[in-house]
């Protein structure tokens, strides 16, 4: 993907969640955002998802400018996939229906086509046995994997993931990250916020370190993680990796 952000700013009650942020990237397939809590990662992701309107700045994803009128935002949201950290599934629908509903109602697929897509993904990730269960009958890890499948089924141009494992019990982290890895192998491009440094180092081809609404450093994972000259980044990374 190509990503070009210029002078992006977003204030909340006078506090700058994004502070004149700019970056230009080409040929990135997996972009990982790291940084301390409150540094603006979620806000950036929400702006990219078309869920939040910035106060100033421009964004281009794959050459296409992101416009902030409601009609453009709506069609933008249909092209971009999002998975939040919490529980994303609709509780009244089975796992399978959670995947099928947006395909038929938002993307205009027939029910058969939607079912076929859902079943392909569910069997690819060994979730077929859970397809008729309601979210309440699934573990947190299973729910989050279904949510990832639902987004992947939409064949989004880019998939945005905001700490997809941090609301889960630690035992489920691996299965969710495995699925993300599987999606990468299928060619899905993603931008992901995570505190899983091991995953960031191995799965990302570009890492952005954010602090106080700005980008403090960005580069290939080894540049960011190994012997970074910036003491603040080093301090953050060693704190996250301490235990």
């Amino acid at each position: 993907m190509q990503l070009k952000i210029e002078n992006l700013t977003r204030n909340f009650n006078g506090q700058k969640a994004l502070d004149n942020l700019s970056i230009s990237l080409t040929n990135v397939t997996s972009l990982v955002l790291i940084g301390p809590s409150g540094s603006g990662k979620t806000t950036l992701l929400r702006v990219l998802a078309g869920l939040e309107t910035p106060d100033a700045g421009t964004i281009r994803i794959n050459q296409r400018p992101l416009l902030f009128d409601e009609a453009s935002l709506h069609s933008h949201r249909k092209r971009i996939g999002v998975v939040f950290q919490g529980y994303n599934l609709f509780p009244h629908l089975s796992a399978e229906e959670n995947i099928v509903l947006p395909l038929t109602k938002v993307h205009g697929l027939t029910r058969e086509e939607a079912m076929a897509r859902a079943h392909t993904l569910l069997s690819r990730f060994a979730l077929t046995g859970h397809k008729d269960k309601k979210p309440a009958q699934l573990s947190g890890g299973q729910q989050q994997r279904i949510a990832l499948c639902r987004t992947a089924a939409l064949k989004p141009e880019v998939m945005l993931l905001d700490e997809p494992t941090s609301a889960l019990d630690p035992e489920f982290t691996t299965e969710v990250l495995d699925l993300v890895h599987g999606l990468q192998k299928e060619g899905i491009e993603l931008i992901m916020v995570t505190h899983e440094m091991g995953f960031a180092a191995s799965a990302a081809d570009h890492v952005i370190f954010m602090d106080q609404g700005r980008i403090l450093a960005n580069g290939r994972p080894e540049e960011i993680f190994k012997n970074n000259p910036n003491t603040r980044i080093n301090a953050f990374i060693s704190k996250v990796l301490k235990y």
Partner: protein
Amino acid sequence: MIARVLEKSGSPVNTRETMPYLFLSDGKEVPGQVWGFNIGLVVLGIAWGVWACFSALGYDLVWENVWHYRSNMIQGFFTTIAITLVSLVLSLVIGLFFGLAQRSRVIMLRILCRVYIEVVRGTPLLVQVLIFFYVVAHAAGIDNRFFVGVCIMSVFSGAYMAEIVRSGIESIAPSQLETARSLGFTQVQTYRYIVFPQVISRILPPLTGQVASLIKDSSLLSIISIREFTMAAREVNATTFSTLESYIPLAIGYLLITLPISFITSRMEKRYKHAA
């Protein structure tokens, strides 16, 4: 108490075995015959109370006069059912509209909703009936009493329904609305496919409860001489001077409608508690 004393005296005693039919449920499933026995006791107690009251009154029930006017009572009964049914439909529409409009982006509409709901819920139905009848209906030139009654009950019940709808919609976590938005659902689609299916199952029990209130509350329409069930009983009483013989069938008639409804309500509450 007895069980505890026995327990202290040495041999451990199971309350359930010593007093199998008496009063205490220990949280386990209560067997059918125990239910039956206890229900029987309660019914006997009530019957004794009623009998005691009547014998203190020294009043002999005479049913002949009232029986003569039974068709008036039956007609009133069905008028009440008709008023309730039409008002139910209208008040559902009103409730849905005002329940949703409180989330509207039009600020005036939101204010209007609050005013309507607070005024209706904060004043006695009796006052509303009189004001509507003597002021609103008069000004609007409506003289069909059945229609006036239906309007009053719909406006009254609609305010309560609106509150039920509003709290139902608010019980949907905002994160679900956000997820729907991120998936590209429009506002209308979000309500249709995500919000309503969940809200309906949650508000069905309180809504049916509201229907029972609607039936009872419609008895106040008798003060503006709408010939529903209560009015019919009052008229029969006025002609026959048989007060109790007129009003006992009235109470039974209302129970005939409300008891099945509360049975259905509690069934639904159980069902949706498990579904949610």
